[in-house]
């Protein structure tokens, strides 16, 4: 970004001061990321989640607005915009008004460090990962603020739960990420990706036997941090009406939910960057694409990255309809008794592994890749078995 600002300053806007150009570029970049990527992604994900949820429950889902209901999120957004902006009399007004923007800020700032391709990144910070974990914790402040500011017992309980949950799960998240940081020797996301290759056995996921464990720990704790089911205690409908957003309506409510859906992308992107090789595409493909056009490899890298993220977005949506909500004590037990100790073991294991085999063990990576492949194959077999066993009527068309 600084490079872009300097280029623009030197070549096009001689008269303007550099800081002004920097400011324009900064706002321009955030506007582009927000309007061209985050907002459509969050909107369409909200629709896709509802469709997937419906199919998992043998329903059809929203299919009225636009072709197959694809414009449902626009209709919901317009509806929310036109709603009355309600502020409860008991609310702490400044906190109540400020809270959704903090939630949104915590989500949106992480996009500064998340890469889209090898060159398409707002800013490749050398503390990228730390930055992402730090800024996403602003969300917790926003949620506690929303809970307190609403002046309602449900919101209060939801906010407190959100705070307890997010702070607890920061620890396994950090520890699991540490496994990769040890291997990559850097916090910059681009450097972490550059340390991996395009093929599965070149990913950090299969680098050593501890990394798959760390991968699952990271995924689980990121889901918990994002307040997604089965860890959605802060907004448990059956106990807390809607948790910290009970008293919100209209646009503020939409901001909180917008952040939640955009957070899905961040979870997927983090897992992809750390363990699944990010935007890496095979060198041969990259060279061939570079021969076609200079921007073409970037597009392929973006698509690769995006597809990997979508897999995780789908998995997280599916997880929501697979597991029932855990209890608060179970939530803490999972974090402190299982995820944290196992994550510690993983960190120590990776460190030892790096001392004993500094170059890595090629046969181990192949073995782990093969095991992962077998697990995926067994998964497919079990899915088919479930269908056969229940003699289900099949319907593969997603657009019924």
């Amino acid at each position, binding site marked *: 970004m600084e490079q872009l600002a300097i280029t623009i300053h030197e070549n096009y806007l001689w008269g303007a001061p550099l800081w002004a150009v920097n400011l324009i570029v900064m706002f321009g970049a955030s506007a582009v990321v927000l309007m061209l990527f985050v907002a459509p992604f969050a909107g369409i994900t909200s629709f896709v989640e509802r469709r*997937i949820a*419906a*199919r*998992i*429950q*043998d*329903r*059809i889902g929203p299919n009225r607005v636009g072709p197959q209901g694809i414009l449902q999120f626009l209709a919901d957004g317009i509806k929310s915009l036109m709603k009355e902006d309600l502020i409860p009399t008991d609310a702490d007004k400044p906190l109540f008004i400020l809270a959704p923007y903090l939630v949104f800020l915590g989500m949106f700032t992480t996009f500064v460090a998340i890469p889209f391709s090898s060159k398409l990144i707002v800013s490749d910070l050398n503390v990228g990962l730390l930055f992402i974990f730090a800024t996403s914790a602003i969300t917790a402040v926003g949620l506690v603020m929303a809970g307190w500011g609403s002046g309602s017992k449900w919101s209060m309980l939801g906010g407190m739960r959100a705070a307890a949950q997010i702070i607890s799960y920061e620890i396994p998240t950090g520890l699991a990420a540490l496994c990769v940081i040890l291997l990559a020797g850097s916090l910059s996301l681009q450097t972490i990706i550059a340390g991996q290759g395009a093929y599965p056995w070149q990913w950090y996921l299969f680098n050593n036997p501890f990394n798959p464990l760390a991968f699952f720990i990271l995924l689980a704790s990121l889901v918990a941090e994002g307040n997604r089911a089965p860890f959605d205690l802060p907004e448990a409908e059956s106990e807390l009406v809607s948790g910290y957003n009970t008293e919100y309506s209209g646009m503020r409510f939409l901001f909180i939910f917008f952040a939640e859906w955009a957070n899905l992308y961040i979870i997927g992107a983090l897992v992809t960057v750390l363990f699944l090789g990010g935007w890496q595409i095979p060198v041969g493909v990259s060279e061939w694409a570079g021969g076609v056009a200079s921007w073409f490899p970037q597009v392929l890298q973006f698509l690769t990255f995006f597809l990997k993220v979508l897999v995780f977005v789908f998995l997280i949506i*599916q*997880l929501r*309809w*697979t*597991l029932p909500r855990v209890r608060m004590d179970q939530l803490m037990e999972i974090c402190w*008794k*299982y995820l944290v100790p*196992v994550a510690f073991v993983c960190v120590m294991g990776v460190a030892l592994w790096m001392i004993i085999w500094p170059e890595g063990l090629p046969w181990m990576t192949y073995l782990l890749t093969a095991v992962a492949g077998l697990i995926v194959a067994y*998964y497919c077999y*079990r*899915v*088919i*078995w*479930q*269908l056969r066993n*229940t003699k*289900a*009527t*099949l*319907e*593969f068309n997603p657009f*019924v």
Partner: protein
Amino acid sequence: MSVSNYFENIKDAATSVFEGFTITMSHLFRKPVTIQYPDKTPMPVTDMIPERSRSWLRVEMDICTACLNCEKACPIDCIKIDTEKEEGVGRYMTHFDIDMAKCMYCGLCTEPCPTGSIHFIPEFERATYSLDQMIERFVPEGGKVIPYKPPKKDKPEAEAPAAPEAPESPAETPQN
């Protein structure tokens, strides 16, 4: 909690989450049970509901005797029959209106009908934009319908008209 218990828990969690994922995934490929009425139905709606279900009223005007039994039986007076007499032609009906918006589907009108002319049909999709359209007019506007005269009981060989068969297509019912 023993150590073996601890690892047992981890194993249980992993296997049950895996199994849960296969079940939810398999449901993605199942046919939804939702019927998208009225846009997409697997078969015409009249075929889906029971053959003898009782929804709207219909009068078979060719066997109506204009006895007014149904009008008298109706507890909420939603049936309105006007008859006139003319020399040479005899008695005829000028109106046979049933206000379906008022009708409560009690079925009392169908019981005294001597020929089974007024009866329920399984059709039910008659949503309209105004209450006026809910009035079923069985005698066309300005038309005359000569009532049916049932054959005398003592004539054994009279071709007694059979009770109306299954209702015909809804397009034939005079509407509006």
